[in-house]
């Protein structure tokens, strides 16, 4: 390996000599020919070259959100059953969806051998809620009750039609895994607030569905690995082996860590590998978390009426309700990005019972989280996002039977909602057609949503990039527009 290192230095020496031989001459030449007064060198995005691949060191402009809680509803919650009231679907139950509505839209392989696409009446009734009389489903009484605090976007569209790529697309801005997720970008760009906890924490709820979710969704991609989402387990202990084993003193641990750190630093002086730095900082973080995490996960000091808000499951580790109260406790501790995943929204068949189960597991706790943050004065600078990776079709997948029908994946439109963090409360944005199939007004693409999220955190998504393998990467890749109408 030493040879490699020597080669590297020699190469740079050679380059310098060659550069200066030609270089000094060409500098002189330039000033003689000098038609162009020297201007600071710009890269593609107008960022000075020395700031490439450096954390931002502060937001680009005044942020309205300091932290994000992303309640990811994995599987594709049906917009027709929850947020997007379509009276036409009740009338036209059993009739074919007009060909003009489907148009050239992509449909998934699961319905490609289907010759008939009968519309299915939504498996829930709607009622008006809030000061604006927003139609909300009877399945989500909790979320409906706080509709005046929510910013509902009914016109989100994505490019992907299958779970894995769609989840990865929503979380990282690219359909293939390998790019950093939103939380990693923010952890990297803005850094940590609480020195005793990671800045990006992930919690998966169990008991929803058996659809797996890949940890590429909270990957650090090409960013230094300590920006990866730290997954809290859904068992009794959110982090295993957190307690110091019997007979080991905490100071022994400290000494051991310091000793290892010295070794690592020696190596680092030699190799300058950022992953060694990640290793050092993560060992340190683990040590700090030994003290910090037990106090977070201990719900015994929560008053009963607060626990009741989140619902009966709140004390069972791993449930969505439990993760929600954990999310609030982590937000109180200024964890930058808290990502929850709830599986169990993928209702290809028996949608009516499936969606009842999923809403029962998530509705009350989601609403409680928003209210709990609000009463603590945290909702002003915490952005809560609730949404999945795509929507569902208004026509039935398979045969249409009264109870047994299902809906297939639909990337053309779906609904998400946000609360706090500087979004307009009480707003319903975007419109879909009578069949909840196409967006007819104010489309919000996933990249637009990501750009808006970054904007709320004070970041210009076009100037937040990382250069790797010869190109610059952004969360929004080469697109995305901030939707200013969503911002208060």
């Amino acid at each position: 390996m030493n040879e490699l290192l020597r080669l590297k230095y020699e190469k740079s020496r050679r380059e310098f000599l060659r550069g200066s031989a030609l270089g000094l001459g060409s500098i002189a030449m330039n000033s003689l020919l000098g038609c162009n007064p020297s201007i600071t060198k710009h890269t593609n995005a107008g960022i000075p070259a020395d700031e490439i691949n450096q954390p931002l060191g502060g937001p680009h402009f005044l942020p309205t959100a300091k932290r994000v809680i992303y309640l990811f509803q994995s599987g594709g919650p049906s917009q027709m059953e929850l947020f997007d009231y379509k009276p036409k679907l009740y009338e036209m139950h059993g009739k074919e969806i007009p060909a003009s509505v489907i148009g050239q839209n992509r449909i998934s392989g699961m319905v490609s051998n289907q010759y008939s696409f009968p519309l299915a009446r939504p498996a829930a009734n709607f009622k008006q809620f809030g000061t604006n009389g927003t139609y909300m489903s009877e399945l989500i009484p909790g979320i409906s009750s706080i509709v005046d605090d929510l910013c509902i976007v009914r016109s989100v569209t994505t490019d992907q039609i299958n779970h894995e790529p769609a989840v990865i697309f929503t979380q990282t801005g690219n359909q293939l895994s390998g790019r950093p997720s939103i939380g990693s970008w923010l952890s990297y760009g803005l850094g940590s607030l609480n020195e005793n906890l990671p800045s990006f924490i992930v919690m998966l709820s169990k008991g929803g569905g058996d659809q797996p979710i890949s940890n590429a969704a909270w990957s650090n991609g090409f960013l230094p690995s300590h920006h990866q989402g730290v997954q809290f387990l859904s068992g009794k202990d959110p982090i295993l082996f957190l307690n110091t084993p019997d007979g080991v003193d905490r100071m022994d641990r400290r000494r051991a860590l310091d000793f290892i750190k010295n070794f690592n630093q020696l190596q680092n002086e030699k190799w300058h590998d950022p992953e060694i730095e990640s290793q050092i900082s993560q060992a340190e973080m683990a040590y700090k978390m030994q003290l910090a995490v037990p106090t977070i996960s201990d719900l015994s000091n929560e008053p009963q009426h607060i626990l009741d808000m989140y619902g009966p499951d709140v004390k069972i580790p791993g449930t969505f309700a439990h993760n929600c109260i954990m999310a609030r406790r982590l937000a109180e501790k200024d964890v930058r990005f808290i990502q929850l995943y709830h599986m169990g929204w993928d209702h290809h068949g028996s949608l009516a019972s499936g969606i009842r189960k999923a809403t029962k597991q998530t509705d009350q706790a989601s609403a409680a989280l928003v209210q709990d943050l609000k009463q603590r004065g945290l909702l002003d600078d915490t952005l809560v996002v609730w949404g999945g990776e795509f929507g569902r079709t208004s026509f039935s997948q398979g045969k249409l039977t009264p109870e047994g029908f299902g809906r297939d994946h639909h990337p053309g439109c779906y609904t998400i909602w946000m609360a706090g963090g500087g979004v307009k409360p009480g707003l319903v944005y975007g419109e879909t057609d009578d069949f909840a199939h196409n967006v007819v007004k104010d489309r919000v693409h996933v990249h637009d949503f990501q750009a808006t999220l970054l904007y709320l955190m004070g970041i210009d998504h076009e100037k937040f990039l990382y250069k790797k393998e010869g190109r610059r990467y952004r969360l929004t890749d080469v697109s995305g527009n901030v939707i200013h109408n969503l911002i208060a």
Partner: protein
Amino acid sequence: MMIEFLGHFHPVIVHLPIGILVLAFILEFLIPSKKIGTSIVVEIALLIAAFTLILSALFGWLLSFTGEYNADILYKHKMLAILLCICTSILWILKKFPEHFGKITKGYPALFYCSFFLLLFTGHFGGSLTHGEDFLSLSNAFKNSKIQTNTNYLEEDSKDGLAVKNTVYDSLVRPILVEKCMQCHNSKKQKGGFQMQTYVLLMKGGKSGHPIVPNGIVNSEFIHRIQLDNNDEKHMPPKAKEPLTSAELNLIYWWINNGASKEKLLQDVKINDTIKAIVKGKEKIELPSLNLQPVNHITIQDSLALTQLHLLITPIIKGSPFLEISAINAPGLNDADLELLFNAASQTVWLILDETKLTDLGIKKLLKFNNLKRLSLKNTKATNQSISAINQLTHLEYLNIVGTSINDAGLLSIKCNKQFKKIYCWRSGITEKGIEKFKQLYPNVVVDFGMK
């Protein structure tokens, strides 16, 4: 190609005769004594000057074929330069063979003075060609940005008599050209013989053919050049300049695809979502701002005490003097510790002191933090006594007294300015009755009492 390249030697060599001629001038007229024997030096200097002058004039002539220069100034520069060549050559002949010319030699000093002034003017016009006409103008000395002074060519479009606002060209396309292209493609500085300041000139193009082919992106040199590799020397704008953003490129794309018309009005064309978003983005969006008077930027001393406190001190915006200070990592913070922050008191706009050991005594010290907009005292020992200090914070917008013992009397003694927005008072001594009374005083302030 080769000829133009030779032309590039013009600026390399042109400074030689200037220096030498000036030297000759000084030796001839300003060094008083003839004893040193400068005469031979002047003679040689004149010879070299004449030779290099002719050489650089030749190179200059080759360079002029690139057509990148303002024809008017170029003509003056050329004529003066030729005159200068002739004068200097005669000077040398008069100096070298005075015996052949008799009385004519008496004109030698006058001719020398003439040459000197010719040299000044030739040089000046040369400079104007490369650096722009106002490079040496006095007004330039008082302005900061070179780019701004160079925009008088912008007015030329109105000479077309057709400048209609709200056409796609005028409101969307032209601003991009003005910002990113016209610095080098205008009547004064015609790089590649290409000017853009009017629509007609833009469509006409320069040496490289048609820059814009309506409905034909593939054949449009303009698009081709922008999309070349960054390191390609034909890439536009050149490396050191700011490139077009993808939104700008998309816009021009779309404009060309729709006929690249000058007259089409914005409301008449079919706008797709991408363009709509770009147009919307163009509407001036005010970034959220703090609306505070500027303050001095003091970096807080990294004192040992401050480090041990683990206070989180971060700029609100990158590079801004205004700070957010949070005690999230400093639960041990007490009244005395606040004094460590006095240096940065007026820079602090968000102060989060939740769950600390702070009491009324410390909160009274907050008087110094006159620019505070957000103050959070959640779960501290604040009581009604703190309110008088809080009332002095005239910029306050957000106050969090959740979990303190402040009660109705305290709430009612809070004086809210116009900008005051929110008070969070869950789990404090405040009751709904107190809030009702407060609401009558300040109907616009949101008081959050928590869940019922």
